[in-house]
């Protein structure tokens, strides 16, 4: 039995790009053990801040056959994380017990080398704290002793209105996460680099028009 690997499965078939995962993550983590998460020029020109999760938008095809794709992106907690071996202090580490990749803020020297080694741009240097930060899979929620058991999940998973984020152990074939990946063809990003991301994405699928009408046309 392989070691536990906790991860998120993002369902692009129902993500409407509402950014709930972006700000619910921000508000949990800025007050939690991973925080604070800085905002610079908060009310000025070009406001910028530390977020662990971003939602992007892409278009494919050309009018009228355009697809609009909303794309949440956060650390993929790779099984072969390229950001871990390059870190000189050991601040970037992958937990053996659950596969979560974390940054130890008290060891990090802010050299940014790990962010160079991440092909996904999943890491952000917090400008005020000058340490690298990234998605922690809400490890402080998962192992919390005070939260109700049903809520020991990442903040983004609790918040997502379309349930587009599924949380679980991708090494456990019986978990909802694994089953969804298997049934719906969940895939990894940039497989060419063999980082073996633990997070997977579920592709779009089109529910076709009724057969009778299809034939006619």
């Amino acid at each position, binding site marked *: 039995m392989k070691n536990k690997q906790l991860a998120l499965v993002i369902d692009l078939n129902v993500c409407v790009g509402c950014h709930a995962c*972006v700000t619910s993550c921000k508000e949990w983590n800025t007050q939690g053990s991973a925080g604070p998460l800085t905002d610079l020029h908060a009310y000025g020109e070009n406001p910028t801040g530390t977020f662990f999760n971003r939602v992007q938008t892409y278009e494919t095809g050309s009018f009228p056959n355009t697809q609009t794709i909303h794309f949440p992106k956060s650390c993929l907690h790779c099984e072969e994380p390229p950001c871990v071996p390059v870190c000189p202090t050991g601040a970037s580490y992958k937990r053996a017990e659950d596969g979560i990749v974390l940054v130890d803020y008290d060891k990090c020297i802010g050299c940014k080398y790990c962010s160079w080694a991440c092909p996904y741009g999943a890491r952000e240097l917090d400008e005020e704290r000058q340490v690298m930060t990234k998605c922690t899979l809400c490890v402080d929620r998962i192992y919390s002793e005070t939260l109700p058991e049903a809520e020991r999940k990442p903040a983004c998973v609790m918040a997502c209105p379309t349930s587009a984020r599924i949380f679980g152990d991708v090494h456990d074939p019986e978990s909802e996460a694994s089953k969804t990946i298997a049934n719906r063809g969940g895939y990894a990003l940039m497989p060419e680099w063999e980082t073996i991301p633990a997070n997977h994405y579920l592709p779009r699928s089109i529910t076709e028009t009724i057969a009778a009408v299809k034939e006619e046309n």
Partner: protein
Amino acid sequence: MFNPFSSKPVHDPIHKISPIDEVKKTTCYMCACRCGIRAHLRDGELVYIDGNPEHPLNQGVICAKGSSGIMKQKSPARITQPLLRKKGSDRGAGEFEVIDWETAFGILTERLAKIRATDPKKFALFTGRDQMQALTGLFARQFGTPNYAAHGGFCSVNMAAGMIYTIGGSFWEFGGPDLDHAKLFIMIGTAEDHHSNPMKIALSKFKRAGGRFISINPVRTGYSAIADEWIPIKPGTDGALFMALMHQLIANQQYDAPFLERYTNSGQLVCLDPGPEEGLFLFDPNFDPLNPNLPHNKYVWDLQTNSAQPCYQENVRPALTGEFTMGLGPHAGKRVAPAFELLRRQVKDCTPEWASAITGISAKRICKLADEIGHAAFQQEFSLPIPWTDTWGKTHDSVVGRPVAFHAMRGLSAHSNGFQTVRGLAVLMSLLGTIDRPGGFRHKAPFPRQPNVKPPSCNSDIKPNTPLGKPPLGWPTQPEDLSLNEDGAPLRIDKAFSWEHPLAIHGLMHNVITNAVKGDPYSIDTLMIFMANMSWNSTMNTTEVRTLLNTKGDDGEFKIPFLVVCDAFQSEMVNFADLVLPDTTYLERHDVMSMLDRPISEFDGPVDSVRIPVLPPTGNCKPFQEVIVELASRLKFPAFTTADGQRKFSGYTDFIVNYQTDLVDGIGFLAGWRGKNGEKSLRGEPNPNQWDEYAKNNCVFHYQMPIEHQYMRNWNHSYLKFAKENALRKDNDPIMINIYSDILQKFRLAAKGSRPGRTPPAHLKERILRYFDPLPFWYAPLEEEVTNLNEFPLNAITQRPMAMYHSWDSQNAWLRQIHSHNYLFINTKTAQEHQIEDGAWMWVESQWGKVKCMARHSEAVDPGTVWTWNAIGKAESAWSLDPNANESKKGFLLNHLISEELPFGEFRVSNSDPITGQAGWYDVRVKILSADDQTTSSETWPQFKAYTVPGMIALKQES
């Protein structure tokens, strides 16, 4: 232990911060969805907000805005002190002095009392948010002024009016698609912002269950992104699509005839003879009308006996088509036709080819859509084994389901052809037999309802020191219900319920300032605005309005002498006020989402909810509702004063618990835990502990009706009884679906001159004749008639993103990082034809104004349309942002391109729907050009300034 060679983590990722020690529940207010939330505190400080898993509306989820509530609370744009504009300073210059509440109340009480005692119309109260209307409407009514409304007339009144006049309900708070049972879901003209979380939850479940989702919209974003098919459509042409779909369905016999015969006025006989009854239903004097306002005693043509029979008879087979002559009786010899026959004739020429030329959708696709809809409705029919009895006493052992559902919003509404377009959709949904049936459209309490209350209709309805006998807003059903004085001039400052906007059921907020300054129909003294940014994004022709607010008469006084603005934040509007009243945030106050207003009901029953303070008010902020109750008490409104002249309510919470409506006793603002011991629901004596009960129950009360009450409610006997008993409705007669609207026909006859009673002024006769068609039809928006379409070939529209609500979130440090400025989205080919590159500076111009902005190429937009996010662009320094913030320097407002008036012959009319007055702000036509100076243009145009005001948190932090 400090061990330099250890590999163990030094930072504890789990227990570094102490756990949260307190959780308080309340209701979110970052948008109008009103999800249940939990506020988490640590040492008394608010640190986290999430969704309440036990709340029926959002079931624990929360959106980007709700998650950012903390930054709203901490926003430096908060105003915290009452302010009075310094004498002699200009409006808009932001020169204020801080005063205390007692002074503020004193000023207001004195001024309002004087107005109330002389000419109550001179006080106008308009609110930006619609969900507080039970209290603000009560205030206006008790004051005695008709000049009251919320923002619906600017926003989506067509959606409400078009559907409620047809089926007795509408989308969003009033009803919606039953996605639990639907197989095909068609979303039309819906932007990203409403109705938010419940729609997201339902849509996700629907897709995962294998449902097919089609989105019809000029733009593909948000919900439309996850549609299985996107059908681009030209803005303002959806009505043509609906006409063609009805044409196809009728031609292919794909309509629910039994449903139409029994539950709609399709079979009811319309008189065809010219004269005062032309186009009206004939009435049977021998039968009880049941409801004198909307009488039921009409006829159908019985195919068995080949004669006219009273409708609603059990053993009658009503004809839907054909033309007949009335036999012996009170209407002998009159030519009649069933209403459905007239609909059939109306859509006869609305072929898919005809609609294709208008909408840009291929005729083939329109036919295919009709086939899909028909297939879903009829080939996938199912039933639920729920027995129910209809209003005529017949028992049914199941409820039929036709699993095709719709949802629509502002894309249909915000056009000057919106009412008839929405009516077209409602009639289409009715042809399919999907009204209040599983898998189709379902009402939400207190709906279904039909028009019953009327607004004031003559001068004598308005008296000094007297509450209005009729509420300021109502539902006219005939010209006599219009708000006109003896000369036929409008009674209301916004001219709602006049011949220019007869069915303006939500008022016309966007006309108030212009009309008041012009003194047309009259001038007012005091304008009080709550949470409405009428000098910025809640107006058309922003520049003009800002000038008007500063306009003075010959006597040196402002044309609107006194302007009161209540808001929690320094919006652009605050600068223009004479008196500023600082409101609290939603986390600092009690609040009510009431059945008397727009509650958050579910399909299965009424739901109302409250807000309970999580934090104390900041500075000197006072909840607006407290201000209203305080003013009402000081002005000694009868509903707020005891018989011996004492103050009745100590404050807002006392008012909510103890106020009961006049009409029915036992009905108050909150439906839950009524009765002395909280044992009654919906109706009962006031319960002094009612607030505590809500606090103990997630701030929400959900009354689940028995299953027999949950469907076919328009005609469900026991439901109708229940609804009347609990004052959800005034009456209990069935709410027949109006395929044909004789209400509209009455106005048409008045314009024709063939009807006794009120007639419109000469210059509006043609207009009313044209648009008050009792059947839906499509016409090009009014703006197109006065636009050179060759010079301005493109449509320009806006929508709000999911992560920002109106102009409200630019002062939110997190949300503004997601949307700090906006681009104009243009189809790539269209942009290239105009040599406008991706990201380049450009001009977008209408015949009314021009704006400089940046372009963004997109394939997800129809080539004839350009669009942007509304209300992202701000005035410089508004909302306490830095003067060089992106919102003002790179953001822009499309409103500058829109005019609130259109030339109409030698007159001017409002740029709005001729039936409801809904602002036609998606009608504007534009052209685009590349800007010459790409490198030197570094900011958008036009630019405006706002100013900081005393008492703002931002300033306090500096000092």
